[in-house]
């Protein structure tokens, strides 16, 4: 039985068509991807720039506020404020200051003073 050549030649050859279509998609996809990537790079670049600018602004504000705080804390500013408010505050007279000598750890251990404090009766501490 002879083959029908006419119908055979007229039949659609899917392989090459699919390959061509695939190539087109790849090329178009690459092109779109490239453009998208460029767009992303630009967008992210702008974002970085904006955020860097914001960071610089915040650092500047932080510095300004820290300086302002330091100024308000400064002894001269406090002195001026105290004088301005007329609170009657004045430095303590040296004789008004009660100084308690710091106990030396070694001498305490020798005298078993830690034990003495621990052994103190409860009623004596509550009086």
């Amino acid at each position, binding site marked *: 039985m002879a083959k029908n050549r006419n119908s055979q030649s007229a039949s659609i050859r899917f392989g090459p068509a699919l390959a061509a279509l695939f190539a087109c998609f790849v090329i178009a996809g690459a092109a779109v991807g490239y453009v998208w990537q460029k767009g992303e*790079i*630009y967008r*992210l*670049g*702008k974002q*970085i*720039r904006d955020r860097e600018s914001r960071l610089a602004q915040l650092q*500047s504000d932080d*510095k*300004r506020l820290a*300086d302002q705080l*330091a*100024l308000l*804390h*400064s*002894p*001269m500013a406090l*002195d001026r404020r105290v004088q301005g408010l007329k609170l009657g505050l004045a*430095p*303590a*007279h*040296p*004789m008004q*200051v009660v*100084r308690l000598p710091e106990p030396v750890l070694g001498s305490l251990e020798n005298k078993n003073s830690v034990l003495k404090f621990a052994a103190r009766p409860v009623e004596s501490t509550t009086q």
Partner: protein
Amino acid sequence: MIKRQQQIRRALALLALLAFGFIGLGFRLVDLQVWRHDELAKLAEKNSEQKIWQLAKRGDVLDANGNLLATSVPVKTVWANPLLIGNQQAVVARALAPLLQMNEGDLYQRLLPRVWKNPKGETATNQYVVLQRKVSEGTWQKIYSTMTNLSLTADEIKMSKTERANYKVFSRNLRQYAVSAEQDQSRVYPNGALAAHVLGFVESRDTTNHSSELFGCDGIEKSFDSKLAGASGWRVTGVDSRNRELVAMRDEDVDARDGLTVVLTIDSVVQNIVESELAKAMKEHEPVSITGIVTRPRTGEILAMASLPDFNPNDLRTINTNTEPNLAISHVMEPGSTFKTIVISGALNEHVVSLNDTVFCENGLFHYGGITLHESESHHFGNLTVEQVLQKSSNIGASKIGIKLQAPKLYDYMTDFGLGAFTGIPLPGEASAKNYVRPADKWGKYSIVQIPMGQGVAVTRLQMAMAVSAIANDGVLMRPMLVKRLQDPDGNVVQQYEPQAVRHVISEATAKEMVEALKTAVSDDGTAPLARIANYTVAGKTGTAQKVVNGTYSNDRFVVSFIGFFPADDPQICISIVMDSPKEGGRAFGGALCGPVFSKIGAACASYLNIPPDQNSQQPNPPPLVAKTQNLR
């Protein structure tokens, strides 16, 4: 046949034309890509690439407790490109003059475009004109907003379509790019004139990269300039047609390294106490100048150093030849009687005399080598012990002790106490006074009687304060310490400075003897009862030196001083007060004028520094000034 030949000719002609065309293009290609490659590559780079400088923040200066003494705040340098302003100078000047605090006419002139030939013969234009420096961030925001919403004077309705399109581009460029700002910084001293002579001041100078940099001109700002300045960073990056940075095309990106923070030994509270008291004394006694130094004798730390008149480093107009010098280190003076501490220390240390030895003070008239030394009427003493020579500040007594010590030894002690040499304080402009502390072989015939009473020798106020501090410190001379440490902006210590002993000048025993003798100076019979501080034992010495005017010693111009320390047996602080030419003239004495200033500063410092009193009972009030004035030397 003819037709075919004609066709061939035409084809050849076309071919030749094409060949010429290609040769021309090839030539141009070689011209652009090979011969002019370097020049054009630079041009292309200039158009698409930009180098952005990043400013390094100048480091802060802190006091010993971390209080801010000097800092830098970010500001803007506002500049304009007159080429983008076209003929709208009047509009821009009117809008910006109030914000920039400039005269409208001056601003208008600055905004005019100018063209000139540079030295290379090329045409140059003024595309970068600085309008104002040190503009705050807030003001710049207002300027930017004003420029963005600027109403221009041109009438768009009368314009053709092309003119309107051009005008649109022009107005957009003018509003957005004609006036710009660059990052800059301004130095701020939050406490104004406080410690001005220690801190110094800065000035700004233009750099090649369109910005300005601060540089120290005096004080710590100058001596630590390289540490405070930091290092600028830069970024090489691609820019778009509107000169906006393209982050993806960043090339070199080097961050700026901010300057180090300098932490001083100065305590701003003590400094404030000293400056307040000096200002009161300045008002009361009207001297030409007054200085105060507070040190810790054990470490050499300077807690306060002040000179009046002073200046405000925030306002450079207050700086002039009268206010700028730090008198404590840069001016030399004859020390007067405070110098007796050095002579007697040396004599005690060499065992030439002891405190109880008697010196005959010639009843106020001492003939030596053909000259006669006269004491003032209140100082006609007969026999005095060495201790009393210090207590009563006898010039003849000191001269006789100097003669016993002999010139070479006296000179050795002077230099050992640090006179005639730089103290090593990290401040610019220190005088060594080397020429005024001459070796013994170059002394004159009368130097040995003159120098022991503080004449014919000159010192700086700091040298003298450190010498007395050495007596307080068991005879060990310390290097004056002004900087505690350097730290980075995050507070990490980069360099720590430790107290440095220079040398052991006198023995500990001699130092203790000297302290006992100096305690008597503030007794009722001494020269400085007004220098006493309630609840503390004070040791110190007064000085009243005649000033040399027109080559002779003046009888109405004196440099008066008091240097003392307390608590005498465990000295915590040493205070030096020096007044130059107070209004009292011939009636001016160190004990009477500087003693009370010392006492007030000492009492306030003792309270603030929480120095434990060494006297349990409150001492009676010092005797009234009038009764003892004649004895105060």
